[in-house]
Every structure is written in structure tokens, then in C-alpha cells.
């Protein structure tokens, strides 16, 4: 590896480290990296280009996320940071790792189950979601949409606590 490319690799690592410090504005317990929306980081000299993908097509937080990313990179010495948006491959909750899922649970959000296949079965019952507070499976869906598009609202019949679930997509 040439010194130049070794330097580039170190800068890419440094950029990823900076991005791991950027919280998602809607789910601040996770970083944008843990949420899986950072798809690529490339450096060219001083410039760094970050590729992100939105969780949902209508996600209103994307601009804020872009600003946060640029600000974090600038704070870590990357003067010329740009953010590019890509839509394919489409974001999936399967990109959220085990450790991040545990963080969600501890935060009071039931982590997403495995994303469904591409065939849609009408009238199929949804699986019961485990309560993130007491661990009971005796929960029921209150609404498919919670405080944000990516979450549903459930109620636990065991501990009577309402809670949100990050929907699998």
C-alpha cells in the first residue's frame, strides 16, 4: 500500500469515526451509522463525500441529517464535506445491527423484526411484538404509525405501558 493510499484509508476511518458520533434526530439513541443510512464514505485529498440513503421517501429529517453530518466532519478537520443521497438499494431495517437493536430496546423502542419478503399476503396477522419494558408478548397494535413514519404504537397488556416499535421494512 502506498503512503498516499494508506493516508486515504486512515482518513476514511477517521470520517467513519466522526459519523458514529452523529445521532439520528428522530431516534437519538442510534447514530446515523448504526441506523444504516450511511452507505459509503470516499475521500479525495481534503474532500470527503458521504453517501446516505433515507429511511423513508418522505423522511422530513434528511436535510437536518445532512447538515449534522457536514458539521461533524468539519469539527473533525474535514473542511470540504459533501453529502450525496442515493435511493437504491432501498433502506431496510435489516441493516440495523444487534448492538443497535439492544440500544433501541433499552430506550423503550421495540426493535424491528426481520424484513418481510417481497410477496404481500393480504389479511395476514402481524406477529406479536415483545414489550421492550417488561418482555411480555401480550401486546397489541394501537396504530401503524407513531411519532414518526418508521414507528408503530403498541400497548402492553401485561404492564399496561404503551410503547413504540420500529417497523420492519
Amino acid at each position, binding site marked *: 500500500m502506498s503512503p498516499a493510499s494508506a493516508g486515504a484509508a486512515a482518513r476514511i476511518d477517521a470520517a467513519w469515526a466522526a459519523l458514529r458520533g452523529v445521532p439520528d434526530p428522530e431516534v437519538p439513541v442510534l447514530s446515523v451509522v448504526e441506523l444504516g443510512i450511511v452507505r459509503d464514505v470516499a475521500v479525495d485529498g481534503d474532500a470527503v463525500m458521504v453517501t446516505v440513503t*433515507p429511511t*423513508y*421517501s*418522505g*423522511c*422530513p429529517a434528511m436535510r437536518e441529517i445532512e447538515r449534522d453530518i457536514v458539521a461533524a466532519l468539519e469539527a473533525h478537520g474535514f473542511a470540504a464535506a459533501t453529502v450525496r443521497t442515493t*435511493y*437504491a*438499494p*432501498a*433502506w*431496510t431495517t435489516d441493516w440495523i445491527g444487534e448492538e443497535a437493536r439492544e440500544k433501541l430496546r433499552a430506550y423503550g423502542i421495540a426493535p424491528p423484526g426481520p424484513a*418481510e419478503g*417481497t410477496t*404481500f399476503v*393480504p*389479511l395476514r396477522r*402481524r406477529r406479536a411484538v415483545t414489550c421492550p419494558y417488561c418482555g411480555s408478548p401480550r401486546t397489541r397494535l*394501537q*396504530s*401503524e*404509525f*407513531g*411519532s*414518526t*413514519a418508521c414507528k408503530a*404504537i403498541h400497548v402492553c397488556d401485561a404492564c399496561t405501558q404503551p410503547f413504540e416499535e420500529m*417497523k420492519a*421494512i
Partner: protein
Amino acid sequence: MGYGNAPDEPEFGAGSDAPARVVPDAPAAGPVVRTHTSGPGDNALFEYLLRLGDDRLILGQRLAEWCGHGPILEEDIALANVSLDLFGHATLLLKLAAEVEGNGRDEDALAFLRDAVELRNVQLVELPRGDFGFTIARQFLFDAFGELYFAALARSTHEALAGIAAKAHKEIRYHLRHSTDWVLKLGDGTPESHARMQRAFDELWRFTGELFAMDDVDRAMVEQGIGVDASTLRGAWRDRVNAVLAEATLRVPDDGYMVGGGRLGRHTEFLGHLLAEMQSVVRAHPGAQW
């Protein structure tokens, strides 16, 4: 018929079984905004993308009308979220359309500076929102179609369009789950909710044929491997609608006269009212920045 329309909005299908009056909007008077209207033979891909984008733009606007007026807080939020997703799809599709057109217009110009005769949405999505049951019935019919359509569109040979479709498809799946749940709850609910749902489906049915209609634009897109042959989806859509309506104790309306023309810019009088509200700020303050 009491669908809870705003007083300033013409009521849809009021008080009779007669079809809603279909009055194409006259070209707008007053200062002319320079726009270019593409015909079917002009640029099929541009036209096709407008159709896809306009369906979602107009239905997104109809759903947004519920913001602050939902029957319960959760549904207020749910309809606003579905609306946001539809605006997201419309933004991506119209942005692509603008790039294909290459005429200096962007997605905002396409959304906010076209008049009714230039819009290419099906008439189903422009009908007034009605009561919550009517909104849900329409949403279910549209979602059941969209889920099938966008699954197929995700296999388009047009890479950018396939990417948008794959993303949209994931979201349409839970839109459909949401609208299906409510069709079941309201259809198999109280006598009042059942009657309102049945009336909604009966009124909406004649607007469903347009979803599956194919013309030269669609056929050109199918031949190029870009577009979807909607006519082939009708059977699967019927099976799905039949199953859900049966479970909801509702009767599937008989196929009769089907309206059409939205794809060619022929719309009901309701679209003009919708655009007047949606476009008012942009038209009153050209070039204004947020």
C-alpha cells in the same frame, strides 16, 4: 350525503346515484405561466413519469387535508405520514420527469406550476376526501393497486425508476396494511360504519377502471421494458379486493360504466379546487425562498 366535506368544497355524488359531474377544467384565465404540455407522441417516458408522480402528488394532498381533522389522534398522524410518503414518491418521480424533459423545469415547477389540464393523475385520487370511511376506502383500492404495480415497476429496465419503485413499494406495503385494517374495522363494525363503507365503495368503483387502462404511452413503456402493463394486474387486484371486502362483510360493486380521461388531462371539477389551494403560495409569491 353528509361526507363531512368542508362547506366551501363541492360535495361529491350528493344525494343521488347519478355519476359525479365530470367537468373538464377550462384553461386558467389571467397571467399565463409558461409551461410546456407534452402529448402522448412527444416523449412517452416524460408522460409516463408524470402519470406516476401526479397520482401520488394529488392523493398526498388529499390526505394532507386530514391534518388536524383526523377522527382520532393516531389516525391524524397516520394519514399525515402516508401523505408524506406519497409526497416523497411524487418528488422523486417528478424530479426524474424533469430530468427526462430537460427543459429547465424542476420537480417543484411540475408540482406547483401546472394547471389541471396538464395533470396526468387518475380521477380516483382527486375526488374530495369525503368522510373518514370514504378516504379509507379510496386508500385501500389505491394501495392494493399500488402494491402490485410498484412491485412490478421495481423490475423496470430503467435503473433510476426501478430504484424509486423498490423503495416506494416497501412503504406502500404498510400503507396497504393500514388501509386494510380500517376497511375490516369499519366494514365489519356498526350498522352506520358498514353502511358508509358500502356507499363509499359503491361510489368509488367507477373510478377504478382507469387504474388498469392502457394507451400508447403505457404500451410504449412496456415495449421498452420500462413500464408496467397495468391491465395484467387486474385479476390479482380483484382477488385481493374481493378477499378483504368479503372479510369486512362488504359487497364488491358490480363493474359498470368506468370513467376515464385523467391520463390525458381530463379531470373532474374537484382537481381545480385542490390545485388552487396547493399552488396558491407558490403562485402568489413566485420564486420565494423558504
